[in-house]
């Protein structure tokens, strides 16, 4: 084994998006040292791409009047199709107004209430009150009873991340960017840190810490068409699962966003519909009111995505060389509104589709967008199976979202989970001591060094990593999409099992020297295929429909058998995940009719 650099700290955070950085700030405020590892400079994290906003029941704007955390709680639980942890949802909805105000204190230029009368695009009239002027305003989003989504134009994630990162700078938290955690170091009971690979020069580095926090975001890039950034490959999830003792929760719960731009799959924020945009079919007919007369375009995301797919299947899609799509129409919102409140969208349409949305229709189709599942933790963010391991944000499943996340609840979750879990991490770390055996670290480093050597030498085979990856992406796209059925899911599982075998026979075509990008992909591929198997196999076993998991062969929600969470373990040497189940925590709102049709919301 060659010499390696070692860093020791109190709290090690893997991922510098909003959840990771908010955790670091909390640790710093508790007097703890931290190191944040990130694939990219923090301000490039995928959190910055979140456009629409952050839900908090401030109730400042006219259409938010009367809102409160109770109603936000109910919307979240219904939205989750009763799959979420209600104690977590309660804590979340109570904390999020404080989080929004704190972000304001830290510099986020939230859009504010402007007093006066306004006419909405659909003709409704409202009046913003003088006494609320200058307070944080909100826009409408899907699946919410009130206008609750706080925003800065359509660059909300950007302004939040920049403000959060400014706090990280102010506190002097250490950030190591272009560093990738490739495995967890643990002794079977406690997590000790990670082995990481530098994306600057390829060297292996050991990070030892009293507590380790996974904050690596989602796995969107397992799918061929995803709104996610290219770095969203689920790495934190598979290095946790790779321990064999930490399970992933509800991996079959995958969100498709109704409006990805065809064919580049870049997101158009839900704010476009929240602000009054319509979905049109090939005849320019506004079809959503036919299916969802009450919530129309603003039913929950899973509902809108299903209705769009159903409408395309019925022959109303617009044919194109990239397959059928529908239109998003925001022309009636007017130039001024589009170029200020939906400005990034206008830019994206111009840059990537050559379209001016003030005059033209935007081609859209539901696109993979969000991972409800992730590293299963308790309500403190402490991972199942290993002491000293925590997870926050999209990479975690403390389970705020169950089987469908509401728009505007993900940015909100990143910050609230950073606050809440950051506090628990701090409490744990202050009471923990740094005890570990040097041998445990050496063993893990040697294991990773051998993996790298074998990939470079082609000892196990010469499978091409990009080919395996492409086939995995297509398998999920073709067989594990918005509507699912048993035979398709079985096809996916079979194909992915073959890919899992092949992923262990990858050999590099290039030298693998230094910061070689092919080696980076090769180190991830096995873990990525395993996540794809967790999604497909979990979906195959779950013989009901709940939230985003829509089985055509089992169209009804089945609370008697399936009001439970999937836990997916990967024991060493296994060819399939080992599935276990646990009950869902229901504290306040018993399962009821969410409505898949007219009253969906």
């Amino acid at each position, binding site marked *: 084994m060659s010499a390696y650099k070692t860093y020791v700290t109190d709290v090690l955070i893997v991922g510098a998006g909003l959840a990771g950085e908010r955790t670091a700030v909390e640790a710093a405020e508790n007097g703890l040292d931290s190191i944040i590892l990130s694939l990219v*400079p923090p301000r490039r994290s*995928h959190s910055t791409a979140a456009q629409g906003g952050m839900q908090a029941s401030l109730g400042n704007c006219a259409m938010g009047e009367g809102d409160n955390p109770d109603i936000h709680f109910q919307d979240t639980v219904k939205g989750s199709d009763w799959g979420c942890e209600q104690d977590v949802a309660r804590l979340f909805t109570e904390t999020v107004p404080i989080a929004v105000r704190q972000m304001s*204190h*830290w510099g986020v230029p939230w*859009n*504010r209430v402007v007093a006066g009368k306004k006419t909405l695009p659909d003709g409704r009239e409202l009046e913003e009150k003088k006494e609320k002027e200058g307070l944080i305003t909100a826009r409408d989003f899907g699946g919410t009873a009130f206008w609750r989504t706080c925003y800065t134009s359509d660059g909300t994630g950007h302004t939040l991340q920049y403000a959060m990162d*400014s706090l990280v*700078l102010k506190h002097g938290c250490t950030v190591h960017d272009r560093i990738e955690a490739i495995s967890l170091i643990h002794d079977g009971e406690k997590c000790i840190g990670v082995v990481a690979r530098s994306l600057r020069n390829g060297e292996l580095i050991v990070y030892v810490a009293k507590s380790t926090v996974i904050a690596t975001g989602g796995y969107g890039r397992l799918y061929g068409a995803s709104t996610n950034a290219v770095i969203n490959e689920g790495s934190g999830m598979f290095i946790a699962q790779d321990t064999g003792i930490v399970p992933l929760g509800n991996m079959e719960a995958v969100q498709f966003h109704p409006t990805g731009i065809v064919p580049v799959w870049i997101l158009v924020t839900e704010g476009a519909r929240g602000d009054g945009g319509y979905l049109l079919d090939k005849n320019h007919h506004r079809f959503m009111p036919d299916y969802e007369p009450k919530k129309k375009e603003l039913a929950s995301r899973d509902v809108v995505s299903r209705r769009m797919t159903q409408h395309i299947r019925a022959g109303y899609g617009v044919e194109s060389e990239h397959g059928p799509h529908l239109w998003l129409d925001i022309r009636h919102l007017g130039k001024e509104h589009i170029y200020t409140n939906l400005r990034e969208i206008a830019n994206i349409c111009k840059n990537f589709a050559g379209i001016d949305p003030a005059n033209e229709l935007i081609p859209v189709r539901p696109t993979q967008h969000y991972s409800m599942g992730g590293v299963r933790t308790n309500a403190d963010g402490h991972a199942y199976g290993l002491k000293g391991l925590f997870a926050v944000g999209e990479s975690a499943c403390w389970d705020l979202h169950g089987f469908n996340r509401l728009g505007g609840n993900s940015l909100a979750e990143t910050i609230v989970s950073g606050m809440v879990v950051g506090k628990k991490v701090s409490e744990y770390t202050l009471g923990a001591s740094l005890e570990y055996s040097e041998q445990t670290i050496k063993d893990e480093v040697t294991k990773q060094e051998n993996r790298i050597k074998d990939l470079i030498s082609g000892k196990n085979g010469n499978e091409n990593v990009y080919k395996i990856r492409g086939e995995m992406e297509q398998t999920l796209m073709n067989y594990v999409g918005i509507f699912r059925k048993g035979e398709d899911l079985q096809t996916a599982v079979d194909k992915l099992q073959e890919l899992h075998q092949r992923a262990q026979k990858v050999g590099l075509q290039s030298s693998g*020297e230094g910061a070689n990008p092919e080696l980076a992909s090769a180190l991830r591929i096995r873990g990525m295929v395993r996540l794809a198997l967790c999604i497909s196999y979990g979906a195959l076993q779950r013989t009901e429909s709940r939230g985003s998991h829509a089985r055509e062969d089992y169209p009804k929600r089945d609370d008697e058998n399936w009001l439970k969470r999937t836990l997916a373990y990967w024991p060493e040497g296994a060819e399939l995940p080992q599935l276990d189940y646990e009950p869902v925590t229901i504290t306040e709102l018993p399962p009821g009719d969410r409505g898949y049709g007219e009253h969906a919301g």
Partner: protein
Amino acid sequence: MGNRTLTFKIFRYNPQKPEVKPYMQEYKLEEVSGMTIFVALNKIREELDPSLMFDFVCRAAICGSCAMVINGRPTLACKTLTKDLPAKISLLPLPVFKLVGDLAVDTGTWFRDMAIKTEAWVHTTKEFDPTALEERMDNKTAQEIYEPDRCVECGCCVAGCATANIRADFLGAAGINRVARFMLDPRDERSPEEYYEVVGAEEGAFGCMGLMACDDNCPMEIPLQTQLSFVRRKMLAQGLKLKTEKVAL
């Protein structure tokens, strides 16, 4: 779309292997409809040369990772369509920033140093009160802060700046724009004297030679010239005030 064959000439150098001198490598690709430099580079890596280094993250012109010099002009690669370029395309890494390898440069460290130097966070003596309502702000003020806050720190303005190419300590348009963002923010309690310390010298607002390539090159179309004038005007007033006080002494 006509079936053009595109010829890419790409800068190659790995600082880990200094014995191999920098060179330009040629790759040929068939153009497809809607092709961007993001699509092209990934195709080259996956099909022709898996060792090629470059950076992309959001691929939607939101994150600022992929700036490079494309046919002589610094811009974001993800939003550059090949159909807007001739069939010969040259790609170089951004100058000024430290090279990671091939087309990848370390903008992250540069921007972090700049943010620390300018103390780019809200300076306030107020404590956050979790039980209180938020402080009010005029919506117009919020929008004015958002304008410079939209900077994605891609580095195009710095790479195309004559001063930044000569002086390593120059804050560049991005740095001055970042300072403008906090000057505009009523929550920031720094006085003109304090800002003068940060941007009142040659490495700040007065280092600019006024060529304004930054304004032309900004992919976010932030009015950098306006932000620079705003900061200069403020600093000039403060500078004159200091001078008058000195004379009075």
